């Protein structure tokens, strides 16, 4: 699989109000819910519906502090997105969190081994987001 290289640098600078989370989910309903969960936790959110769009945005948006992505998506899974991010010299520092509605231990392990910060089971709760963001974006 070819490496993806973004063209902008990313960082974790800024106060909590400026921290920017990229949410990736092909489900309209889940995008709305995760966006609301993240905004409630005071993060700026951009939500896209595919891994491809996520990579396009990462190429143009200079400051993404965390990516939270669904695992099961058509064309590019969350795992494949994770791999592309971690293979990119520009993007590899961005923490990536995977969400899934299915509790499959081999899937979870594979994502964590590939460098995912965490793996959340859906439905994601406000407490999951608070705990995660405190840990990952501190």
């Amino acid at each position, binding site marked *: 699989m070819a490496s993806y290289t973004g063209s902008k640098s990313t960082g974790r600078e800024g106060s909590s109000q400026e921290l920017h989370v990229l949410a990736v989910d092909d489900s*309209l*309903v889940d995008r709305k*819910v995760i966006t*609301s969960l993240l905004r*409630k936790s005071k993060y700026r959110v951009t939500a896209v519906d595919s891994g491809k769009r996520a990579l396009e945005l990462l190429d143009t948006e200079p400051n993404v502090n965390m990516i939270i992505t669904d695992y099961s998506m058509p064309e590019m899974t969350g795992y494949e997105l994770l791999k592309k991010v971690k293979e990119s010299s520009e993007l590899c520092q961005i923490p990536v969190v995977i969400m899934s509605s299915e509790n499959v231990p081999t899937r979870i392990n594979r994502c964590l081994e590939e460098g995912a910060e965490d793996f959340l089971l859906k*439905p994601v*709760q*406000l407490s999951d987001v608070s705990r995660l963001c405190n840990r990952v974006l501190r």
Partner: protein
Amino acid sequence: MDYVHLRRQAASLRKGLFDQGYLDEQFYQLEDLQDDASPNFVEEVVTLFFRDSTRLMANIDQALDKCVKDFNKLDVYMQQLKGSCTSIGASRMKTECTAFRECCRDENIEGSHSLSILNLCMRSFQKIKREHSVLRQKLESYFQLLRQAGPVECATRPNK
């Protein structure tokens, strides 16, 4: 207009949705996310759910009508539908989606009976459609009552 009565009706309808198992605790999560900045959040999410689920169910209907025996494909559609059900707390629908997926998985074990499995899937899907229709009707009534009752806080969460 008797707003108190309308609010009581809405609260009663809401309680019934939980007591009868149509909704589960995930719906509380949606209510917790509703605030002054997003005063209609719950209704917006539910509206999105019914729009999305109708589309998914049309895909499944089409596949079943054509007697498509691609059970993996049916399972993918159903996984998406189940995921949406989970996200809004549509408990009964979620249960029926799980049952449908079990049918699809049965085919993988006994491929020679794919026609009977297809029939089972069709029957299971009819149940999903019924639950979908009932839930939609009840939630539409609930939100209509809320709108008529005016912009007030949600009814207090029932004790668990």
